[in-house]
């Protein structure tokens, strides 16, 4: 860590600042709407040509994945440098150039468990946003009990043959490739699972969007019928996929708990206190007139603040080598509760204004809240249910035993 002395870090900061000044288009320094998010991939769409330029430049430099090795197209930065880059981007309010399950979940796992050829083949395209990945994990019979999965993967000598069904595959209808858990041994549970990659254009793959209660369809049911997969696309060893799966779930929980829920966040949406002041009214001293509702909003805002401070504390402590362990489960649980409470309070504060679905007569922002309220109900289910997170905390953190 000799390199990381303060002076050299300061030098890096100036370089990064200069580069960002030169390369981040002004339109990329404004708040991003949900429909402006860049997901990359073969069929990438860009609402604004600047989005493409910004992604290309950042991808070329490897700064979409600042800490990944240069060898595979990453930025090759140290943890400290990456943090400086983050600060500098925040300083100019630069948008994230790329949203990607490849960056957040699959890439880190492949770097840890993949072989050199696999990394060379897949990582650079993740960094540059050229391949959009989706995650083939849950199945109709395997939700919380993920290891109960049934999708068959048979060894046919020169290739694998895959048959089965996944659900809750995020954006499977838009993704180029899938990283997928499959069963390679039916005689055992956890030890019969493998981790495999294949192109979503392979014959026999079909993705059908699932309509949610919020009216949106970010997830798919995905069907595999005699899908042929080259053998070199299996990651790690045959029947060794469960360890990769677990590690990847940690990356997933961390990315959820750090980023919170709801993509770009609720820009343009007011807080429950503001809606309450507007719709419920205030007393002569400016307080929300309904004291009961006001107390519950205060309680929620405190929880939100406590959550932010906890993220900050755990980050600092991890930096200082005082990691608590399984913080992702703690934050995942709390983030789900927080986001759901927030939306319940928003809907309550909005009154009948929060009950619109579409069309005339309702405020557009309020209708977005209504949809997000329904969407937030998934927060305690997706990426590990709240119940599973409580189990993990009880057993792994608190050391409570199982029935004997």
């Amino acid at each position, binding site marked *: 860590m000799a390199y990381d002395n303060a002076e050299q870090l300061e030098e890096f900061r100036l370089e990064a600042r200069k580069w960002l000044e030169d390369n981040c288009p002004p339109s990329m320094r404004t708040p991003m709407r949900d429909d402006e998010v860049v997901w990359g991939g073969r069929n990438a769409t860009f609402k604004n040509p600047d989005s493409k330029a910004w992604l290309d430049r950042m991808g070329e430099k490897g700064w979409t994945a600042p800490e990944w090795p240069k060898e595979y197209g990453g930025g090759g930065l140290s943890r400290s440098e990456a943090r400086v880059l983050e600060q500098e981007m925040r300083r100019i309010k630069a948008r994230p150039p790329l949203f990607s399950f490849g960056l957040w979940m699959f890439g880190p796992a492949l770097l840890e468990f993949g072989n050199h050829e696999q990394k060379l083949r897949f990582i650079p395209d993740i960094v540059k946003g050229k391949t959009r990945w989706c995650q083939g994990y*849950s199945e109709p*019979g395997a*939700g*919380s*009990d993920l290891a*109960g999965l049934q999708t068959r993967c048979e060894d046919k000598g020169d290739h694998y043959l895959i048959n089965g069904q996944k*659900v*809750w595959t995020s954006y499977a209808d838009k993704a180029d490739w899938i990283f997928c858990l499959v069963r390679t041994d039916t005689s055992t549970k956890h030890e019969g699972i493998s981790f495999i990659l294949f192109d979503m254009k392979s014959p026999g793959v079909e993705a059908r969007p*699932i*309509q*949610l*209660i919020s*009216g949106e369809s970010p997830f798919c049911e995905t069907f595999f019928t005699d899908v042929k997969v080259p053998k070199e696309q299996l990651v790690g060893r045959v029947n060794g996929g469960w360890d990769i799966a677990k590690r990847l779930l940690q990356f997933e929980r961390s990315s959820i708990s750090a980023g919170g829920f709801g993509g770009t966040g609720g820009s343009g949406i007011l807080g429950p206190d503001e809606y309450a002041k507007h*719709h*419920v009214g205030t007393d002569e001293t400016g307080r929300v007139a*309904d*004291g*009961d*509702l006001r107390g519950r909003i205060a309680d929620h805002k405190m929880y939100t603040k406590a959550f932010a401070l906890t993220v900050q504390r755990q980050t600092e402590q991890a930096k200082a080598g005082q990691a608590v362990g399984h913080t992702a489960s703690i934050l995942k649980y709390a983030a789900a509760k927080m986001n759901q409470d927030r939306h*319940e309070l928003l*809907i*309550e504060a*909005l*009154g*009948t*204004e*929060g*009950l*619109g*679905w*579409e*069309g*005339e*007569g*309702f405020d557009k922002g309020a209708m977005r809240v*209504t949809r997000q309220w*329904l969407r937030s*109900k*998934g927060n*305690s*289910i*997706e990426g590990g*249910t*709240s*119940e599973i997170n*409580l189990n993990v905390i009880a057993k792994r953190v608190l050391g409570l035993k199982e029935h004997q």
Partner: protein
Amino acid sequence: MSFVLTEDQEMLRETATAFARDELSITHLRALRDAGANGKDAKTRQKLAELGFFGVIIPDEPGAETFGLTGLGQILEAQGATLAATPLLQTALIAASALQLGGSPAQQAEWLPKIAGGETTFALALDETAHFAPYNVSTEAERNGQGYTINGLKKYVPDAHHADMLIVVARTFGESGDRHGLSLFLVPRDAKGVTITELKTVDSHGAAHVTLENVNVAESALIGPADQGADILDPVLDRAAIGLAAEMLGSAQAAFDMTLEYLNNRKQFGQLIGSFQSMQHRAAKMFIDLEMTRSCVASALAAADDGKSDLAELASLAKALASELVHLVSNECVQMHGGIGMTDVADPGFYMKRARVQEALYGSASWHRDRYARLNGF
């Protein structure tokens, strides 16, 4: 007060339950939604009329026995179980009550039979803001030569997108917030100056904003004495809250039963999810809350029928508990169903969506807690 239904009421309950199950299932609601019906369902209205459900609290002849609000409550509970959109709350309960409590003999003679027969449906046009606040009425009814001219805007009026008649709460004296000075008017939906803006709502029942622009009504459109409309409105709103609470109880019970069914069938980790103790305790707590709410709804219905003086208190009790219950149960229903609960093809989401509409109408839990406290002097 009796918690035990009469034999007649019990039969009515069974008829209503069977009818809701057989003809007004959630599948029916989903089909209506997908067809863009937005809560308008002429066929169902016809069937309800044939069953006599519109006239449950209207005596066949003056002084005759009826099933009472307790009877109507059984029907509303049954329709709550399947989330059916019907005109019963607005017409058979609210309009019938308003006319019975405040209408002139001529008004009663004209309208009650039409209600009982399902010929005419009504909608109570009251709220002007996003929160229930019955005295916050700015809509003005000004005296003119022959009657009144009404101007104002009513927001989120349930059933106004299909009802034949409106009961408009307008101010004939004082200012917004005053209890005194309210008056109730019968206004045909097609009266000149009435504009109905249909709303597409989260529960697929629909509703409408109603704009009244120089709407002229005759003196005879006034229900009860001018300025003293609150004397009619208050007990009508208590009955509305109680009726809605009965509906909510039905919704909560149905969502709970659906959850139990799932808990006893879905497996994870090789075990029924209902065999996990944390699930069992959560289910048991919901059941206790269901039992408590059921008692409150039954008492409130009976209090209305018996003319008890604690009607307002019991109405607030029932509506507040039913609100908390229906949120708890519908949320747990989605959560315990896991991913499938988040999908539009499954039923749990419908309960959660309807629950927020049920809460918002005729006073939220918070509003009723506040009133309960006021009624209890603290």
